[in-house]
């Protein structure tokens, strides 16, 4: 009987560990198994990516449709080359879409906002580029421009 109590205790212990891991996975890290849907890659070149990092969100009208998978330098054009993984079910991005790097809140994280163009245009596929891009807003450049304008007035 005593032995059963011990086994019960160990069983509860194991279960508590498993529950804790599940809670951490789902609630804390937001890991969801349904997210395993396929994705396709599109690219965009930016003058300046600012604080954008891999795993940043890609949004459309504020809704997340994918994530940034890597940021490298395009050696020919000497611009930042951002590779984005877009969820497979988002199959309506047109080739005249524009991508801009936005900031969540005043000091928040950077993310990419995508806006589509005319609906009957060609649809973006794996490996396509978004040509129309707008770079990250760099605070120092803004201040510099502002001071320059002030001085010239």
């Amino acid at each position, binding site marked *: 009987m005593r*032995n059963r109590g*011990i*086994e019960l*205790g*160990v069983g*509860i*212990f*194991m279960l*508590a*560990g498993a*529950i*804790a*891991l599940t*809670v*951490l*996975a789902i*609630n*804390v*890290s*937001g*890991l969801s198994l349904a997210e395993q849907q396929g994705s396709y890659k599109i690219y965009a070149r930016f003058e300046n990516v600012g604080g954008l990092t891999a*795993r940043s969100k890609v949004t459309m009208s504020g809704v997340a449709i994918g994530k940034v998978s890597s940021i490298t330098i395009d050696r020919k054009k000497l611009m930042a080359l951002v590779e984005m993984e877009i969820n497979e079910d988002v199959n309506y991005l047109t080739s005249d879409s524009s991508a801009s790097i936005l900031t969540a809140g005043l*000091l928040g*994280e950077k993310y990419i906002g995508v806006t589509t163009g005319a609906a009957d245009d060609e649809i973006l596929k794996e490996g396509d580029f978004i040509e129309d891009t707008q770079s990250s807003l760099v605070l120092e450049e803004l201040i510099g421009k502002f001071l320059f304008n002030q001085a010239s007035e």
Partner: protein
Amino acid sequence: MEAVINNLIFLGRIAIDRVSAIGRSGMILMHAIIARPDPLTSFPLLIRQLYSVGVLSMIIIIVSGLFIGMVLALQGYNILVDYGTEQAVGQMVALSLVRELAPVVTALLFAGRAGSALTAEIGLMKATEQLSGMEMIGVDPLRRIIAPRFWAGFISLPILTMIFSAVGIWGGLLVGVEWLGIYEGSFWSNMQNSVDFFDDIGNGLIKSLVFGLVVTWVAVFQGYDSVPTSEGISQATTKTVVYSSLAILGLDFILTALMFGDL
């Protein structure tokens, strides 16, 4: 001249002692790991040890996890509210717990709560000649005594770490959301945006596996290698706590540098 030679002898003796202690502990670890388990006898022994090492440590882990989570949320709130970013309390609590505090504090508590008990138990078995008695009747004490205790510690610590993290985050939620009035949605969403399952929780788990190995190894070895007197057992217990705490903190720095240091 005589004094110099004596000092050199003294130094050499210390070095040989230390190195042979490391060697003996390695032998014990190897025996404990490769000891082929006999399912009929080993499994109940393991369950028994999991109970005394793991289950009985749960209370202290849950209580300290809760309080550490609550304190983190309170301190974080006081700092972050100056910048108007008190919603980031969730992510601060979760990241500092999952990456750093849960593995380290759990391992330190575990060394004090379970490691010292293991050392004292094995040391007393040695002092009362139970271990040599076992050898006399043909039972390998490494397989019967050391191996189940070693595995129990190695299995328990990661589980305790996960419980610690989960309870700590719940404590942070209690203070942050229920008491200080942070909006619950942004508490969770900030947390989920910044915590990655494999990079953060997975690395915390790896840390706790390493700590589990080190703490139980030190505890079991100090017990097995203790001087079989009451004084020797008390020294071995002290050594267990001191050595494993130092090993935890040192290894934590190395592991953090490897995992998060972008080396």
